[in-house]
């Protein structure tokens, strides 16, 4: 395990590269989910306004 983590003394470079990849890909997914929820909430509000007869 220690040998795996240390990568022959190049841990900083190996995990620095892999870490940034992990962070950005996960961040992209989370951002997309957040964006979708925001849009759905806005459209839901618009639909309810239309049904309750409020002029937009």
């Amino acid at each position, binding site marked *: 395990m220690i040998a*795996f983590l240390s*990568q*022959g*003394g*190049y841990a900083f*470079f*190996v995990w*620095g*590269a*892999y870490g*940034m*990849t992990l962070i*950005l*890909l996960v961040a*992209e*997914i989370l951002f*997309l*989910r957040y*964006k*979708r929820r925001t*849009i*759905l909430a806005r*459209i*839901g509000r*618009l*639909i309810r306004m239309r049904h309750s007869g409020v002029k937009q």
Partner: protein
Amino acid sequence: MALNWFRFAAPSAFYPLAGRAIPIFWWLTVIPLVIGLVWGFFMTPDQLGGTNAQKEYYRIIFIHVPTAWMSMWLYVVMAGWAAVGLVFKTRLSFMMANAIAPTGAVFTFLALWTGAFWGRPSWGTYWDWDPRLTAELILFFLYIGYIALHSAIDDTRRADRAAALLAIVGLVMVPVIFWSVNCPDPNQCAALHQRSDLTRMEGNILFSMLTITFAFWMYSFATTLMRLRSLILERESAAGASWVETTLGKEGAS
């Protein structure tokens, strides 16, 4: 197959189709990614000898090459959809190009970042104005330029056309990146970046690299389709399309 593919060119028809495809693409991302990573870290030699000696840091190859390939491939696909949109004036094609750009920019940044982390231990420097590195950096700016130009124009249809033109002009960078390591005479031009030859790679390393490339490709499909669905909802509801309400009602607005 008497399937009419043009039916799916309508955003209202493509929206539910993309929704069903996204989970499939996530599975196609996760499974190869796990296999590729485990294989890459445990089934490969720790150090490489030969003419291009490399220690453990060579394992950055398993993400560096896939992200670099995706950065170029996604740009070609993005420019392709932009061109289709300009020629056929189809709304969905422009949205497709729009949806690809951020994922392409992420992969381009990662190709540069992982390259820097590989360059430091193997060349002794994080960055050099080598033809390939410089060309890849310009590709990153093209993605950013495409996104920025699109968001700078309020009228969506004009933004689509202007950004599409930029994407097509920028396509010239892809072959430049691809062939930038083939420097015919080292005295004329200095290419620091190694040449690559897939046929001369060790089998396990090649397998991991290609498996993770497949995973990143599927990841691009998944994130592009997620972004596309949001774009479709935004644009169609702004245009007052009635299908948005019916579709969201059926899906339980999940």
